[in-house]
């Protein structure tokens, strides 16, 4: 029996509303690649990745063709690299091997150049952190992340203190490409082990050898569904409408994840229920909030609207997926969302409002260009604030800032592709130096004592 309306609805979501599966990410454990030397480890790393993921792209295309739903990205995440070596030379050799392996597998990004230093950093991890700017500048596909805080450990302010230096140095080393290195570096609080989205994806230490994690998307489909609800629908109706759409989107993610895991001989990990925008027209999270009734995102009411959206996406998606994980929620990057870019341009969206919104979205301050002359301690203070939101609210938060050398407020940076266009946003210039330079760790909040 043909259910005509169901078929039409699905195909409208795909053809008109930009509904797609955003990423199939293969998580690969590299623990069994550790050898006596950095060169030995790198050789094993290259071999294991290229063997494990050799069919990732072709299987992705096969599934895309069979189900008629676009699968935008096929990516790889690996064990945090800081755990695989000792010296800076070791880490740089592994960085090169990862980049080459990703290229040879045909994927555009590989994540996991990562350190988990939320409580403290070992000598090796400090050596690793020294290499991040150079590794990001000499590679094309490598993505890096640092977990600097957790609800259980508090905020490692010594680690946060290093992040400003890493971000500024990365910007400087990639200044000929508008500091694109910074678009591949993210600082987390409460990083998750099974996130399929870049730049923060890594295959956590609790993960298996080969895992498929799938990130779904579909802001355009949610927006269209809300438009159909009409201006008179109350919040209960809006929430129901989002839940139903999220359910349908996630079911496709579940189908794709199951198929991909089976065909790639991997374990099915999780579905990430995120609404991930792209710069394409009609694929914006900001526009969803505006359809809810805000004249421009960033207006007062934006945090409440985003909170409801985020919650309804999770409620709808949870029933549709067997294993739900990753970041799961609405992303609010600036450069990757046409509505956010417009809102910054018309003066309705500030960094401070975005910070408030990160307390109820799935991640944090994402893909935000700031003036190139922003001091390191201000960047570190922005990170500390974001970590505090994550730690106290027991959620993941993140910061991906791009201090663009030579650019200032009002100018724009074109990254192209999914990374989009970033308007340079103003930051509060009052110095936080006396606070940031104290050193040590902000203790874990009272909610961490749950045993």
């Amino acid at each position, binding site marked *: 029996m043909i259910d*005509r309306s169901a078929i039409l609805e699905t195909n409208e979501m795909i053809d008109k509303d930009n509904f797609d599966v955003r990423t199939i990410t293969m998580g690969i454990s590299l623990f069994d690649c550790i050898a006596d030397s950095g060169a030995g480890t790198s050789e094993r790393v290259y071999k294991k990745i290229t063997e494990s993921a050799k069919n990732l792209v072709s299987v992705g295309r096969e599934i895309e063709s069979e*189900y008629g739903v676009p699968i935008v990205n096929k990516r790889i995440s690996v064990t945090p690299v800081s755990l695989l070596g000792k010296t800076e030379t070791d880490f740089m050799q592994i960085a090169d091997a990862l980049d080459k392996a990703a290229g040879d597998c045909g994927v555009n990004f590989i994540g996991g150049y990562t350190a988990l230093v939320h409580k403290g950093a070992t000598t090796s991890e400090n050596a690793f952190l020294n290499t991040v700017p150079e590794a990001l500048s000499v590679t094309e596909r490598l993505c890096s992340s640092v977990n600097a805080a957790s609800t259980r450990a508090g905020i490692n302010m010594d680690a946060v203190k290093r992040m400003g230096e890493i971000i500024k140095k990365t910007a400087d080393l990639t200044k000929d490409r508008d500091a694109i290195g910074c678009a591949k570096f993210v600082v987390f609080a409460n990083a998750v082990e099974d996130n399929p989205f870049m730049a923060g994806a890594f295959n956590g230490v609790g993960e298996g050898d080969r895992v498929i994690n799938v990130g779904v998307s579909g802001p355009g489909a949610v927006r269209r569904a809300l438009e159909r609800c009409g201006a008179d629908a109350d919040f209960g109706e809006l929430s129901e409408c989002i839940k139903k759409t999220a359910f349908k989107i996630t079911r496709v993610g579940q189908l794709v994840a199951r198929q991909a895991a089976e065909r790639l001989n991997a374990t099915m990990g999780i579905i990430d229920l995120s609404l991930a925008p792209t710069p394409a027209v009609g694929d914006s999270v900001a526009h969803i909030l505006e359809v809810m009734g805000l004249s421009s995102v960033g207006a007062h009411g934006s945090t409440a609207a985003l909170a409801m959206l985020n919650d309804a996406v999770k409620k709808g998606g949870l029933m549709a997926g067997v294993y739900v994980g990753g970041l799961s929620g609405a992303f609010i990057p600036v450069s990757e969302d046409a509505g956010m870019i417009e809102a910054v341009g018309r003066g309705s969206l500030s960094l401070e409002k975005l910070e408030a919104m990160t307390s109820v979205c799935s991640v944090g301050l994402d893909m935000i260009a700031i003036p190139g002359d922003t001091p390191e301690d201000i960047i570190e203070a922005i990170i500390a604030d974001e970590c505090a939101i994550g730690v106290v609210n027991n959620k993941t938060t993140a910061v991906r800032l791009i201090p663009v050398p030579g650019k200032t407020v009002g100018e724009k940076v074109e990254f192209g592709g999914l990374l989009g266009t970033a308007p340079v946003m103003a930051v509060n210039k009052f110095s936080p130096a006396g606070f940031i330079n104290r050193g040590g760790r902000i203790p874990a909040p009272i909610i961490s004592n749950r045993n």
Partner: protein
Amino acid sequence: MRAIVSVVGKDRMGIIAQVSGLLFSIDINVMDLSQSVMNDYFHMIMLVDMSNCARKFEDISAALAALGAEIGMSIKIQHEDIFNAMHKI
């Protein structure tokens, strides 16, 4: 394996004949068909059985897309599971 073939575009003579002719030539059986024309706009959905077809899915998809380009229609084929996943619990 069962799939859904969707054909959309401006109405003209012989669409059903040409699409089903192509499917017949590659051993794909049409099990059900729903078609309508509104304001000169043709829309058809076919449920097909591919179990006797030896060709690769992407080749079939390309052949249908090529026929669509030739006759000025959009034609696509999708595994029926995507619709079942989204619309059935």
